[in-house]
C-alpha cells in the first residue's frame, strides 16, 4: 500500500486505513518517508542533468535548423530547373520522334505501298533482259537471262 500511495494509485478509502497504520507503526512510517523522498530526488537529479546539457542541446538544435534550412533552399533551387527544362525537353523529344520514328515500311522489311514502276531504259552487255508485268497488284520484274549460261 505504501508503494501505491507513493505512486498516487491508492484509492481514497485505503488512504485513511494506511494513515492509521503508519501512525501506530514506526517501521512502516519510516519506510513511507523514504519511499516518498525518492520521487523529488529523481526530479531534482533529472532537472540538474537537463540544466547541464541545455547549452549543448541548444547548439545541436541550431545546427539541425540550419541544415533543414539549407535542404529546403536546395530543393527550391532544384525545383526551379525542371520547371524550365521539362517543356523544351519534351518538345525536342516529340520533334525527334516525329522526324526519325520509322515508317510502316521501315519497321517491317519489304512492305511496299506501290508497284507502280516506270522502267525508263534497260541495257545489258552480256544478257537478254525481259520486263515482266503481271498486273497492278504484283511487282514489276526485270528478268536477266544470262546469254552465256542459258
Amino acid at each position: 500500500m505504501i508503494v501505491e500511495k507513493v505512486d498516487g494509485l491508492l484509492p481514497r478509502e485505503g488512504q485513511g486505513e494506511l494513515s492509521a497504520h503508519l501512525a501506530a507503526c514506526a517501521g512502516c512510517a519510516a519506510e513511507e518517508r523514504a519511499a516518498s523522498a525518492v520521487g523529488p530526488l529523481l526530479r531534482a537529479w533529472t532537472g540538474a542533468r537537463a540544466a547541464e546539457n541545455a547549452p549543448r542541446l541548444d547548439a545541436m538544435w541550431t545546427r539541425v535548423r540550419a541544415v533543414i534550412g539549407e535542404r529546403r533552399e536546395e530543393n527550391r533551387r532544384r525545383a526551379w530547373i525542371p520547371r524550365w527544362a521539362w517543356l523544351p525537353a519534351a518538345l525536342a523529344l516529340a520533334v525527334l520522334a516525329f522526324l526519325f520514328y520509322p515508317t510502316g515500311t521501315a519497321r517491317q522489311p519489304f512492305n511496299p505501298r506501290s508497284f507502280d514502276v516506270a522502267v525508263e531504259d534497260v541495257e545489258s552487255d552480256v544478257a537478254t533482259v525481259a520486263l515482266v508485268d503481271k498486273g497492278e497488284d504484283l511487282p514489276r520484274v526485270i528478268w536477266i537471262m544470262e546469254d552465256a549460261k542459258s
Partner: protein
Amino acid sequence: MPSRNPSVRPSPAALAFLVLFLLLCGSGSAAAQAVSVEIGAVYASNEGSSMDPVLGNIRGKLQSMFNYTSYRLLDRKRRSLAVGETGEFELPGRRTMRVTPVPAQGNKVRLSVQITEGAKNLLTTTLGLSRGGMVLVGGPSHQAGVLILIISAE
C-alpha cells in the same frame, strides 16, 4: 527595389531547344530530298520447299509470280542516298549493284541502277518509282537457283 520576374528570364534550356529546333528544321528538308534505298537478295530454287519468314508480306507475291519452291533471303541492306550520290551494294556471287538517285519530281523517285559481275555489265537501267515503291530484278544464277533482287525506295 523592383524585383526581376523569373517567368520572362531567358533560360539556357529554352535557347538550346531553339537551336535544336532550327537544326532539325534544316535536317528535315535535307532528309526530304534523300532517298532511302533498300536492297534485298533472295535465293530462289527448287531445292526443298521453304519460305523464309523474314520475307514478310511479299512471300505471297513471290509465290504467285515465280515457280520456285524455295525462297531464302540472303542479304538485306538499306542506305540513305542523296540525289547524285552513288551507293554500292555487294551482292552474292561477286556481283555488285550501284544505285544512284537522280532528280525526280513530286513524290517520285528515280534510280539509276547498275548491276555488274566482275567487269561485265549485267544490267543498266533507270527506274521511276513512287516513294514506298518496289521492283524486282531476277535471273542471275546462284548455286542451284537464281537471285531475285528486291529494290525498294522510300
